[in-house]
């Protein structure tokens, strides 16, 4: 593990409007080395990958491949220079067979070559065998299981014979056995002397594979070292867990009342990827329930299934009635308001207009009352009332998103990862607002979070979701004892 780095990234910066998505990232990968780039959603790790590939143009910095700076070149030039990428999601050619899809990657970028060069067919077959697609190479992609589609993406990357391979979430949506097979393929890259960058949400999933890990948060590097070192790193633990886990004693009365929301063995498939696997859940009236889980565990999918945004198997009952067959709009009118992790604010409308839209269906008087109450709950929104939503800071936007959902006077408020991309100081403000919300109303809250310290203090009960399955359920106090250490 010595010698010149194959890929050298220096001072990489990317801004999206006012947001600095990547701020001065440096990284080195040597030939035959696997580097894990990890960070929670919104940390900028995917942007780094896109900057290296040229899919986004960096605002500053260098991306050197064996000493040649490629920063700012178009992606096809960077690809021809020797960097390849395995996308997590792709749209294969559906009218062509698997073999033809692989052959595509072997074609020259030329307008004059009408037929593939001799030998291409043989090479494509060899690659298909190598990634384990030998038996299905003449089938169409739409007939393949999810893992085989990902194998095909891997095959296309291999076909380009890149010196550097970028892999986006290598194991997302795969079963245990498939993970082992893919790990073996990635180790094969290392053995061939390629430099490999694995981008993933957390250390756990790539720990067994990587030589080094670089952790990012809010666009900056927070730790670098072996997987063990990074997992033990204080800053990393604070980012993922939020520091020391504290559970506050909660009111116990809620559990006695009737369940407001019931899920029985709910499963969701995205194409061929299992996003939720027989998940059951109960939320009683007036209760505050937290679902904790790392990014990609299935939290958002669960909420979308409840809100009627994705089709699902299994039963979902709300106030005793099945939600099957109801449209998303009808479910929202029945009293379930979801505050999505992407916030979905109307950026070019003012704070006040965003709130008014949320309360559109209310009679004028109760709308005014609801608005007054919310502005009291989130005083900062009163100051910003005439400002455009787009110009708010991340924390203010999150408060506006919650306030807008509350304008609908929901019985059940679903908060999906409200801490996403927020600085610790803001988290405290948000936490206090939630506390006030709990004290001043009898609203039922279902919170999805990866930040355990944020999720636990308010919760009456906690669920742990991992790899599309519910692993654990219990009071917050016991979570720290039983699950606290194994979570990361």
């Amino acid at each position, binding site marked *: 593990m010595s010698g010149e780095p194959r890929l050298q990234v220096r001072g990489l910066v990317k801004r999206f409007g006012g947001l600095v998505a990547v701020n001065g990232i440096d990284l080195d990968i040597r030939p035959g080395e696997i580097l894990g780039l990890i960070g929670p959603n919104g940390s900028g790790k995917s942007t780094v990958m896109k900057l290296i590939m040229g899919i986004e143009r960096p605002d500053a910095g260098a991306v050197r491949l064996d000493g040649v700076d490629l920063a700012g070149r178009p992606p096809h030039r960077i*690809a021809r220079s020797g960097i390849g990428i395995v996308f997590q999601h792709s749209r294969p050619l559906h009218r062509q067979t698997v073999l033809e899809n692989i052959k595509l990657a072997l*074609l020259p970028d030329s*307008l004059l070559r*009408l037929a593939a060069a001799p030998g291409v067919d043989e090479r494509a077959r060899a690659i298909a065998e190598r990634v384990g697609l030998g038996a299905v190479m003449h089938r*169409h992609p739409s007939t393949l299981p999810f893992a085989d589609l990902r194998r095909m993406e891997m095959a296309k990357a291999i076909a*380009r014979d890149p010196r550097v391979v970028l892999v986006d979430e290598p194991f997302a949506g795969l079963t245990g056995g498939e993970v082992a097979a893919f790990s073996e393929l990635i180790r094969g890259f290392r053995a061939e002397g390629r430099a490999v960058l694995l981008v993933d949400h957390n250390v756990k999933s790539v720990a067994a594979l990587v030589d080094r890990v670089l952790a990012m948060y809010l666009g900056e590097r927070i730790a670098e070292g072996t997987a063990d070192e990074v997992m033990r790193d204080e800053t990393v633990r604070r980012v993922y867990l939020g520091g020391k886990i504290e559970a506050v004693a909660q009111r116990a009365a809620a559990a006695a009342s009737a369940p407001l929301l019931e899920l029985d063995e709910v499963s969701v498939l995205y194409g061929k990827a299992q996003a939720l696997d027989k998940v059951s859940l109960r939320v009683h009236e007036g209760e505050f329930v937290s679902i904790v889980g790392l990014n990609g565990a299935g939290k958002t999918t669960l909420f979308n299934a409840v809100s009627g945004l994705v089709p699902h198997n299994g039963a979902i009952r709300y106030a005793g009635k099945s939600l099957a067959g109801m449209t998303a709009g009808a479910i929202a009118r029945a009293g379930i308001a979801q505050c999505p992790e992407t916030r979905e604010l109307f950026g070019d409308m003012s704070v006040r207009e965003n709130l008014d839209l949320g309360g559109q269906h209310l009679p004028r008087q109760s709308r005014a009352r609801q608005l007054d109450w919310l502005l009291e709950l989130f005083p900062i929104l009163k100051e910003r009332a005439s400002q455009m939503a787009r110009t708010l800071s991340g924390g203010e936007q999150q408060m506006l998103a919650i306030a807008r959902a509350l304008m609908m006077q929901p019985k059940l408020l679903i908060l999906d990862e409200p801490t996403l991309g927020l600085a610790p100081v803001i988290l405290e403000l948000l936490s206090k607002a939630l506390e006030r919300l709990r004290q001043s109303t009898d609203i039922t809250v279902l919170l999805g979070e990866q930040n355990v310290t944020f999720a636990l203090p308010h919760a009456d009960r906690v669920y742990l979701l991992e790899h599309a399955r519910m692993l654990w359920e219990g009071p917050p106090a016991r979570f720290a004892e039983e699950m606290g250490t194994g979570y990361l």
Partner: protein
Amino acid sequence: MPARILRSRLLWIGIGLVVLAALLPFWLSAYLLGILTAAYYFGVFAMAWDLLFGFAGEVNFGPTFLIGLGAYTGAILDNQWGPPIPVCILAGAAVAVLGGLLLALPALRLRGPYFGLVTLVAVLLLQNAIVIFAGVTGGEIGMTVPDVLSIDATVNYWYALAFLAVCAVILFGLSRSAIGLILQASGQDAVEAQALGFNVTKHKLAAFCISALFSGLAGAMLVFYEGAASVDTVIDISIGVQVIIAAVLGGRRTILGAVLGAIFLILATEFLRPLGQLNTFVVAAVALAVILFWPDGLLGYVLRRGERE
């Protein structure tokens, strides 16, 4: 080798159809032959459009910009200087490619629906230009050309059939070639195609030029068949919409389906003519139903069923 069997079967079916079509003049009236002749040129319009939409994934709302450039260039040239007809037709195709290039170079930089909007505006610009320069173009009335391909309906029919067959072989072959594969990848997932090392802009530009070449050729041929060029027959937006409907009706990404769509559309319009005003309405309703219930089109539907088996 299922692909090779399919291809050879397709070849024999194709040859059979062309022979059958070539014998039609012995049965059909001159009137019906005339309709089919127009339908064949229309088929080339639709195939050229499908190469751009079905393969490169770019919706060209202004196929008549390219068709019109070819048609009017040929007509004006013939009127002003009167060179042999083939020269006029080739010049029309050249101008269509040039115009297409000038339009696509800046427009392909735009993302989302803007490319389509630019092509739509281009048609309006061309239409206005023709009205403004009425002295040369004949304006809204249109212009006649002194020379025609032939005055015999059967000969005209054979010209159109041969032209259609040659265009179909070239465009279909192109769609099945390495370039067709790269174009499809660019149309479906441009980011991934670039990451595989393909210059997506270059390939889409090439597709636009090829589409322009065949549109321009067919446009000019049509003028020398009909003996006249007018805004209503080769440039109007509604003609463009018919080309698009023909291609979608026949089946996106099939090239040959576009021919079926075009023939169906022209024949249907003709046979429903006794309905008067209702005629266009019925044809539009049929097209709408096909797009809603068989979005893959006639040929696309058949192919998909074959894939599943």
